[in-house]
């Protein structure tokens, strides 16, 4: 997979419509996978925290939908006095956008749905990839562990 592919997609999303301040991609446990911002130096925020809260809200709402048997959750829109937060499901993750208050909601919805479909595929591929440790490295690690255990036994 191309490095920084998620950041590139998020940056393209931010550039596609005025009023988008920040885009964050998180997994369902709240871990931030990637993020992009239009004015990062002007709006210093805790991206990890925002992403974790957005993911928690989304997963919570999803659970409510399951309990009420009204199907899968597609999007959560939180409207504030000075901005809006959009969250949409994308495969095993959640895409979160922070925007200005007077943004075109219809356009943001459309852009998010398109981007979520693209990100969903990549994210599933990214999360299903297994990291294999080379055999030599494994042997070295085992030897180090054995040496450490011997040292402990001698004590």
């Amino acid at each position, binding site marked *: 997979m191309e490095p920084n592919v998620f950041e590139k997609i998020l940056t393209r999303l931010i550039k596609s*419509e005025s009023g988008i301040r920040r885009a964050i991609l998180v997994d369902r446990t709240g871990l931030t996978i990637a993020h992009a911002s239009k004015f990062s130096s002007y709006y210093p925020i805790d991206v990890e925290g925002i992403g974790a809260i957005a993911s928690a809200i989304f997963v919570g709402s999803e659970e409510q939908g399951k309990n009420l048997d009204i199907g899968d959750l597609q999007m959560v829109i939180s409207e504030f006095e000075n901005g809006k937060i959009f969250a949409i499901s994308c495969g095993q993750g959640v895409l979160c956008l922070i925007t200005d208050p007077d*943004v*075109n*909601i*219809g*356009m943001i*919805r*459309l852009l998010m749905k398109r981007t979520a479909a693209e990100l969903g595929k990549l994210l599933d591929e990214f999360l299903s990839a297994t990291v294999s440790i080379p055999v030599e490295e494994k042997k070295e690690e085992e030897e180090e562990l054995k040496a450490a255990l011997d040292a402990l036994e001698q004590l």
Partner: protein
Amino acid sequence: MLSEDVIKSILENLGKMEGVKGVVITTTEGIPVHSTFPPDVTEKISAFAASLLGKAKEMIKEVGGAKVTFITLDTSEGELLISSEQEYVIAILR
């Protein structure tokens, strides 16, 4: 505010006019209110019509400050008419 029935009758009357393929009523935020198109087409037309109107208003404000009341888009396969009043936008494809 207009009632649901009145809006439906307006849409039906517009739909009966010669060459009209469909009508969408949306908010200026691009959220569809009523439509004669399928949901996916409605979503696209609403978003782009509201966005286009917003851009046109911005441009007109920069050059003179007049009020934008109507936009006509001529295409090779027909035309798109967009009109706005207060917080609603109507888009007609014909």
